[in-house]
C-alpha cells in the first residue's frame, strides 16, 4: 500500500516542529496497516494540529476548536466501518475538555492523537492545559498560577479503555499509532512534542528532555484493565435492535353527537399526584369521540408528587385559534395549591360557569354555580379525584356525556386500569 500523503500539499510546519515527524509517521502507520484513503477520515480542529487533514489523501473533516471529537462521534455512528482519526493539540484538549471526557466514558472506536506541545503555537505561545507552571510563555505570569493536567490520568479515570503517552520522537511511534488505531474502542495517544516557533524559544525542551520527563511520569497500563468493555457503536446497535417500534399516534373515530356544538373551556386545578393531566387528556379524548377539536396545556412544578398541577382543556367544534383560556366554562377545583396558583381566574367567571369544588378546598368568591363534591363520603381516593370530577361532569351532561367518557377511557386504558376506571364511573355519584 502506497503513501497517503497529499503530494500537492506538503506539510508546512516551522523548521524543527515535531508535527512534521508525526505527519510522516502517521502515514507510515497507515501504510503498515494497509489502509486506503477511503477507509480513513482525519478529523481536526484549530491550531497547527488542525492542518493534518490537508496533508493526507483521506476523507477529511476540519472544524472548530476543541470540537473534533463531536464530529468524529457523528461520523463514526453514521459510518461504523470508517477509521476515524482525530488530531488535537493541547489547546483543543483544554477547550474541548467536556468532549474528551465523554468520549472516554463512551468508548466509541475513535483514535485521538493529542499533539501535545505545551502551548498555543498558532496564536503566539499562550499557555494551555498542559503548560508547566514554570514555563515562560505568551500569557505573562498567568501560567504560574495554574497547574497543568496529565490527560492520561484524567482519561483513565474518565473511563478511557486505551491510554498511552509517548514522545513524538520515539523510534516506535508508528507502532504506537498503529496500536491505538487498531484498538477496538476509544484510544488516546498523548504525543509529546516540541514547538520551536514558540515554546522552545524561551524554554529548554529537547527530544532527550522529553524522553527523561516521560520516564519520570507515573506508568499507565494500557489497555486500561478496569475500563475494558464493549465498543460503544456495536453496543448501541445491539441495544437499539432490541427496541420495539412505536405505534403511530392514536386515531380517534367520531362515534357520538356532542351535547352542544360550541367551544368549551375547562380548567382543572389540582396537585401533582392527582393525575390531573391524565384527566385532562381523557376529557380531550372524550371530546374527540364526538367530533370536537381539542387542545390541552399543562402547568406543573419541576418536582414530582409535590406542588400544583394544572391543565387547561379546550373542546371546540371549529378549529381552535387562541389557546389561552380567559373565561372558563368549567373549573374543577381539586386542591388548594392549584386554586391558589390561579386565583385571578375566578374573577373572570360569569354566571353560567360551573365550579366543582373538592372537599377541603376553599375558593375565592366568584360568580357561577358551585357544586360541592362529596368524594370523601364516597370513599374516593384523592389520586382519583380528577377522574372522578370528570365523571361527575359527564353524569351532569356538562361538556361531555357518559358514552363519550367511557369511550375515552377505552382509548386511554387497558386491562386492570380500564376496569378500575369503569368501576369508578359506576361508583361516583353527583349528589350522594
Amino acid at each position: 500500500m502506497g503513501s497517503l500523503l497529499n503530494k500537492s500539499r506538503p506539510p508546512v510546519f516551522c523548521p524543527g516542529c515535531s508535527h512534521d515527524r508525526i505527519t510522516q509517521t502517521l502515514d507510515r502507520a497507515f501504510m503498515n496497516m494497509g489502509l486506503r484513503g477511503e477507509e480513513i477520515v482525519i478529523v481536526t480542529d484549530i491550531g497547527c494540529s488542525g492542518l493534518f487533514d490537508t496533508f493526507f489523501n483521506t476523507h477529511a473533516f476540519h472544524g472548530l476548536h476543541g470540537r473534533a471529537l463531536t464530529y468524529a462521534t457523528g461520523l463514526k455512528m453514521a459510518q461504523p466501518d470508517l477509521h476515524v482519526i482525530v488530531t488535537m493539540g493541547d489547546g483543543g484538549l483544554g477547550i474541548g475538555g467536556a468532549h474528551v471526557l465523554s468520549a472516554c466514558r463512551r468508548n466509541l472506536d475513535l483514535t485521538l492523537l493529542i499533539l501535545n506541545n505545551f502551548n498555543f503555537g498558532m496564536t503566539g505561545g499562550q499557555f494551555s492545559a498542559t503548560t508547566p507552571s514554570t514555563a515562560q510563555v505568551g500569557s505573562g505570569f498567568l501560567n504560574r498560577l495554574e497547574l497543568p493536567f496529565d490527560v492520561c490520568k484524567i482519561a483513565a479515570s474518565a473511563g478511557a479503555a486505551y491510554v498511552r503517552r509517548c514522545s513524538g520522537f520515539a523510534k516506535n511511534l508508528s507502532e504506537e499509532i498503529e496500536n491505538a488505531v487498531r484498538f477496538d474502542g476509544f484510544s488516546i495517544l498523548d504525543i509529546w512534542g516540541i514547538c520551536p516557533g514558540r515554546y522552545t524559544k524561551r524554554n529548554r525542551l529537547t527530544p532527550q528532555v522529553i524522553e527523561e520527563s516521560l520516564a519520570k511520569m507515573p506508568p499507565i497500563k494500557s489497555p486500561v484493565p478496569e475500563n475494558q468493555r464493549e465498543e460503544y457503536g456495536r453496543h448501541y446497535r445491539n441495544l437499539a435492535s432490541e427496541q420495539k417500534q412505536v405505534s403511530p399516534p392514536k386515531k380517534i373515530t367520531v362515534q357520538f353527537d356532542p351535547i352542544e356544538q360550541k367551544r368549551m373551556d375547562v380548567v382543572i386545578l389540582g396537585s401533582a399526584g392527582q393525575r390531573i393531566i391524565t384527566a385532562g387528556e381523557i376529557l380531550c379524548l372524550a371530546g374527540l369521540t364526538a367530533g370536537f377539536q381539542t387542545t390541552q396545556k399543562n402547568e406543573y412544578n419541576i418536582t414530582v408528587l409535590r406542588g400544583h398541577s394544572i391543565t387547561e382543556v379546550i373542546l371546540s367544534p371549529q378549529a381552535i385559534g387562541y389557546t389561552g383560556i380567559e373565561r372558563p366554562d368549567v373549573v374543577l377545583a381539586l386542591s388548594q395549591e392549584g386554586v391558589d396558583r390561579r386565583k385571578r381566574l375566578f374573577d373572570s367567571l360569569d354566571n353560567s360557569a360551573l365550579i366543582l369544588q373538592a372537599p377541603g378546598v376553599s375558593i375565592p368568591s366568584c360568580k357561577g354555580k358551585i357544586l360541592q363534591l362529596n368524594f370523601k363520603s364516597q370513599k374516593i381516593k384523592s389520586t382519583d379525584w380528577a377522574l372522578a370530577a370528570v365523571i361527575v361532569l359527564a353524569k351532569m351532561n356538562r361538556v361531555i356525556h357518559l358514552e363519550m367518557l367511557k369511550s375515552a377511557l377505552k382509548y386511554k386504558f387497558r386491562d386492570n386500569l380500564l376496569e378500575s376506571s369503569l368501576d369508578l364511573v359506576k361508583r361516583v355519584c353527583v349528589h350522594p
Partner: protein
Amino acid sequence: MEGNEAMAWGAVASGCRFFAGYPITPATTIFNTMLKLLPPLGGICLQGEDEIASIGYCLGASMGGLKAMTATSGPGISLYSEHISFAIGSEIPIVIVDVQRLGPSTGSATRGADGDIQFLRWGNSGGLPVIVLAPVDVRDCYLLTIKAFNLAEEFRCPVLIASNKEIAMTRESVDMDAVDLPKIIERTPPPSGKPFIPFEASLENQIPFFLPIGGDVIVRQTSSTHGADGYITTDFDEIARVQDRLKTKLTSKVKRFSYCESYLEKDSDTLLLTYGITGRAARDVYQMCKSSGSPISLLILKTLWPVPEVLIKEKAVNVRRVVVVEMNLGQYVREIERILPNKIIDFLGQMDGRLISPNQIKKALSHG
C-alpha cells in the same frame, strides 16, 4: 399530540435517521420522542454532553450521509452559534429546532416567547442568510419539519424552526389524514464519470453535489474559508464567489419557499401580520372582524428568513396600514418597516410569558 412530538414524527417521515440533543425545557420531548422512534428504525439518537456537542454530532453524522436534526431552546441555541456558522459556510444539511422560551438568558423555562427571531437570523459569524420557518400549530410542526428537511437537503444549508413553548408543549388533536405531504427530497450525488470536487456548484442551481464522508470517493469538509476543492483559499476572487453563492443560493429562491397563510379582504385597509403561536389569536381576530362587518386582512408568515419580501409586498399592496404582532418587544417589525416604507406600520408586542390574546390584538387594530 403536542407540537414537539409532531416534529419528531415529521422528522422521521422526512427520512431523518440521526438526532442528538441535550435536555432542555421546553424542547426535551423532541429528544424523548426521537429516542423512541429512531433506534427501532436503525437510526441513531444521542444525548450530547452539551449543546455544542449535540449539534457537532449532527454535523458529523450529516456529512456521514444521514439526515440529521437537533433541538434546543434559547440557552442552547446560543451555544449552537459556532456550529450554525459552520453549517452555513460549509453547506452541511441540518434541521435545527429552537423551541423558544422567555428570555433573556435562562429566563423562564416554561413560558413561551418569540424572542429569538432576529437571533436565529443573525446569530452566526459572517452574517450569511439562513432559512427560518415558524409553525403556528401542531399540524405545522409536522408539516414544516418535513419542509425544513427538504430545504436543508436541497439547498445544503441549516434550516431553523422557530417553535415556541406554547406550540411545542400544547397537545392538540390533528387530522393527520388531511395533511398533504410533500415529496421527500434527497441529497443529489454528482453525475458519474467526472472527478468529484466537493464544493463545485453550477451557475444555475448554485448547490454543490453531495457525497458522504466514508464512501468510495474521498470527501473533504472544512470550516475554513475554502474554494471548490475544499482546501483553504486565500484567493480573494474565489472567496468572493463562494460567499456570494452562499448568499444567493437562498435569497434568489425564496419565492419557492415563501410559506404563509393569508386571508385577504378587499374592503380592508388594514393588514394584520404575525407568525408563530400568535397566528392563532390572529385567526380568531380575523373571524371576529369579518363577522362584525369590518373585515381586516391577515397574513401569517411561516417563512421568516430570508424575508419573503415579494410575498409581503404583494399581500400588503392594497392596504394603508400594517399591524405587526409578535411575542417580543419588536423584532420582525423592523423588516416590515424596511420593506414597506410607504405604509403605516403599527406594532403590538408582549414579552411576559403570556400569549397575546385576540382582545389585545383587536384593541391594537382599533387604535389606528
